């Protein structure tokens, strides 16, 4: 189990390492505009093949690259209803504060839980290696966070139930 996680993260790291080759590219359609081409998808010559890396049926990662931007969408593991709700709430909390993260997208791509949008400007200001480390670390930490949240919800539920039922 742990070995597939390691392989999955290595695969994503290697793919990002290769795919994150971004350069400034002004918009071809509208002059004096500079837009992330991966979001618009107007010119096919500016886009690379999107790559879907699945660890299993529940967890996957979609990496779409273009000349000046890269979009990474993640679907995290959700084993039951409670994890589903916790993941949704937690990732929505993060997405709402996307300004602070800089590379986070405000809305995840359809079919995924959270999305990152990295442009050439981010690559100029921030180090490419550190960006990749951040994304891989994020993926590791998300699983831990959701497990912790689930455990704390279960513990609280058990305590509350015990206290309440003491009176009977």
């Amino acid at each position, binding site marked *: 189990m742990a070995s597939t996680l390691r392989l999955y993260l290595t695969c994503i790291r290697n793919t990002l*390492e290769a795919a994150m080759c971004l350069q400034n590219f002004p918009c071809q359609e509208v002059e004096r505009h500079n837009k992330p081409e991966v979001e618009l998808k107007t010119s096919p010559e500016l886009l690379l093949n999107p790559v*879907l890396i699945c660890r*299993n049926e529940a967890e996957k990662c979609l990496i779409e690259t273009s000349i000046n931007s890269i979009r990474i969408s993640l679907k995290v593991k959700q084993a039951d209803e409670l994890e589903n709700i916790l993941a949704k709430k937690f990732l929505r909390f993060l997405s709402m504060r996307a300004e602070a993260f800089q590379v986070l997208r405000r809305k995840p791509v359809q079919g995924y839980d959270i999305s990152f949008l990295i442009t050439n400007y981010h690559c100029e200001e921030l180090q490419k290696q550190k960006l990749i480390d951040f994304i891989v670390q994020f993926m590791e930490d998300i699983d831990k966070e959701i497990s912790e949240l689930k455990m704390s919800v279960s513990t609280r539920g058990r305590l509350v139930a015990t206290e309440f039922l003491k009176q009977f």
Partner: protein
Amino acid sequence: MAEAEKFMGSDNVEDILTKIENKSLKIESLIKPYKPIEAIKTALEGYPPQDEQCKFANWIGVRKALMAIKDVVGILRSLNPQYYDILMKYVYRGLSTGDRTTCDQCLKIHEKLTEKAGFGCILRSLADTVNTI
């Protein structure tokens, strides 16, 4: 360049599907007596044409060869470097299926192949929009 890569040069879809099926049978016959290297070499020969059916039929055959690999490092050592790019494309196709066993195997192959072939191999598989599998 695209013409040179065309599979067998035939235009008839049925003909191509038959040829792909024959190739699949040949791959199976090489896997049984445990000759995974030859199986992989047969599987990686040529690109399927742009038709979805042909691509799917071709993928089924290649998947059999990929799942039969036990010693990834050994296979890559004996495989001709010209096949690395095509193998990487098939590995990504395997990773996109979502099936647990296929993904496990493809993740193993991906790690070793990246160590052997480098990041250029990954980038060529991303950038090649003409010869897709």
